[in-house]
């Protein structure tokens, strides 16, 4: 399965199992979604459960909260993560805080899916990676899968979780892994050729808060998620450096045990994300690694991120973290003795 098909499969599985699950968002019903993630749900479950909505992100999330309070389990689609901001008051002030502020009396088990990330010539408003905004909000879980197998298992976990989950889907890898623009002019492979494109038809879960080791290594730990997992893997391969690559999968809760175990082993760490650098999620990773692994560190922790600029159109490949920048960072951190 592609990542789109895996996400679609997760929605089919959860909707078949629980009549309280419904999907809602712009173009998700009759049309099946602009990325086809909700295809077939309308035909199978009807207009009530594959619910087309007005173009009002704040209204969509608010309605989902009310539905969640009334016993439903809404899976909301924000068409692009770049367009989540009109809903941010409902997400931060309401969805994230409801259980706590009500002393545990009320909660809303809402999952918010949003295609994120760049590498698709999406310019300023179709390329953003706003995960760091949401990991800063107490009460939200934040998840970003990097492959079809994880996408399905993590999405099922998110939908079945009674806490609100921000589920960001890197649209660059919806149809195949992407290794960066450095080789083949940005071309990508197919998920059908990839082991993690083998996705069971039925129900399975991948727990939130558990990282995956993509590649074991001894020299340096690389922390990445989403599209950058694949770019990092290719950069590591090209560099010949024996790096250990972790796909975080869940940013919050963070699998700090796995991260710390790896860095204590390697003594070095490089953090990679597409999002802008300053106050990005990478800063939290750097801080956590520094606090938990200080006496094991043999070099300053490196960050390879998007620049602190809005996402550009023409300069996409100068902006998007490249294999070359990753290799440079790996070599810099290894230069310390």
């Amino acid at each position: 399965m592609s990542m789109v098909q895996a996400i679609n499969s997760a929605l089919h599985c959860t909707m078949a199992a629980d009549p309280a699950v419904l999907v809602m968002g712009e173009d998700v019903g009759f049309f099946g979604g602009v990325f086809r993630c909700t295809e077939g749900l309308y035909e199978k479950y009807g207009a009530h459960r594959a619910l087309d909505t007005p173009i009002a992100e704040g209204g969509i999330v608010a309605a989902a909260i009310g539905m969640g309070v009334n016993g439903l389990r809404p899976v909301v689609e924000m068409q692009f993560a770049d367009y989540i901001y009109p809903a941010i008051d409902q997400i931060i002030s309401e969805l994230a805080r409801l259980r706590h502020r009500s002393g545990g009396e009320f909660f809303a088990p809402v999952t918010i899916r949003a295609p994120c990330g760049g590498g698709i010539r999406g310019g300023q408003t179709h390329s953003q990676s706003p995960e760091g905004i949401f990991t800063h909000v107490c009460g939200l879980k934040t998840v970003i899968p990097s492959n079809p197998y994880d996408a399905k298992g993590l999405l099922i976990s998110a939908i079945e979780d009674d806490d609100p989950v921000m589920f960001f889907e890197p649209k660059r890898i919806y149809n195949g892994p992407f290794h960066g623009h450095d080789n083949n002019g940005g071309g990508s492979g197919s998920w059908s050729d990839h082991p993690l494109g083998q996705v069971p038809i039925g129900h399975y879960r991948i727990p939130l808060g558990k990282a995956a080791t993509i590649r074991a290594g001894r020299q340096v730990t690389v922390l990445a998620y989403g599209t950058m997992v694949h770019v990092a893997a290719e950069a590591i391969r090209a560099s010949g450096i024996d790096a250990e690559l972790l796909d975080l999968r869940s940013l919050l809760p963070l699998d700090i045990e796995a991260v710390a175990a790896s860095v204590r082993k390697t003594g070095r760490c490089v953090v990679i994300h597409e999002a802008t650098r300053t106050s990005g999620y990478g800063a939290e990773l750097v801080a956590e690694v520094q606090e938990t692994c200080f006496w094991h560190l043999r070099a300053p922790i490196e960050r390879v991120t998007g620049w602190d600029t809005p996402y550009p159109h023409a300069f996409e490949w100068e902006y998007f973290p490249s294999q070359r920048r990753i290799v440079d960072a790996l070599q810099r951190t290894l230069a310390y003795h």
Partner: protein
Amino acid sequence: MPKTGGNKPVEARGHADATGTWVSKLHVPTGSSRPGEKPDFRALNLVSDDAMFRPAPDCETREAEPLAHGLVRVLDDEGTAGGPWLPELSDEHLLQGLRHMVHVRAYDERMFRMQRQGQLSFYIKSTGEEAVAVAQGMALDSGDMLFPAYRQQGLLFVRGRDVVDMMCHCISNARDNCKGRQMPVFYTWKDGNFFSISGNLATQFSQAVGWAMASAYKGEEHIAATWVGDGSTAEADVHNAMLFAATYRAPVILNIVNNQWAISTPQSFAAGGTTFAARALGYNIPGIRVDGNDFLAVHAVTDWAARRARRGFGPTVIELVTYRVAGHSTSDNPDAYRAHNESEAWPLGDPVARLKQHLIGRDLWSEPQQQALETELKEAISRDWKQALSYGSLEDGPHWPVATMFDDVFQHLPAHLLRQRQQLEEKE
């Protein structure tokens, strides 16, 4: 029934320059008064016969359109009830309504004084608006879900919330069901179908629509009702609520409590020269403007909207025209932005006095009985306050154990919060 106020004043609509050419001019609205001025409520257009009809609950929006510009009244200025909206309410129901309103007022008075004595950090009174929450609460079923703003404490009295529990919340003691996390008046009561109040304005308005959508999705007969103030109608959530309610014909009542003031800002900054009820028409929702200080009219209109919603005919917007007699909150000084005692000039009077007058006029009630009721409830509030303090005060406690601060952020305590809780406990 309408018999109050005056005619709508003519306003200049443009601006002529020196050559006599009309040019645009930035219009900045004003309020009913500023300090030192004489209150003038004529712009509200409180006199109208437009609302002298009662459509069927399954009416089309256009049939009800005049109701959005008129003012539904049942009680006239002398306390006599009549007209097409006269509700069929038992004497007991009306007397119970009066009792609830007097109870709310006694509660507000006591809590306000306790804030001034430093025993509460904050308080918000609903003085002058008691009929809104009490009559509307009494017109709904207990299974209907309430999404209030922070000035509908009367709903809790109607639903039978223990006053001691309300007070315990306001002083964040060991019996506070919000576990000391919320400022006073941000009540939560799941068993009473009373949604958790948020400080962020209007967010509940569109959430109520979602709750109602779920009710319809499940085929249940429960409806949702929600409240927002005149000022908060400016928030995008109010647009979202009306649009979603109309799109999905959600069984919801969208109440706009027009108490004339949003802290210091007059209602004209959000109304744009029209009524709030008229906002509904563009969404194809019936909008009804009602005398918010007329218990019978508020009850009748709410009952109409509830029947409409329950039978699947869709949402209703109700504008409740009332007046915020007290300051916005204990942190506010209304004399700094409106005429001193402006409320005395309010044409729609006082909701308690008007229902009392009506009941006395029908020989169901008397001044001595009113005095006795006020004394009884004042004493009851005093007893409740003493009992609430026995569970702990804001300053001295006991409070919830401090470690519970980390609970309920998530359903289960994640590792990072467990570590932070341990750090806090190590320090102590």
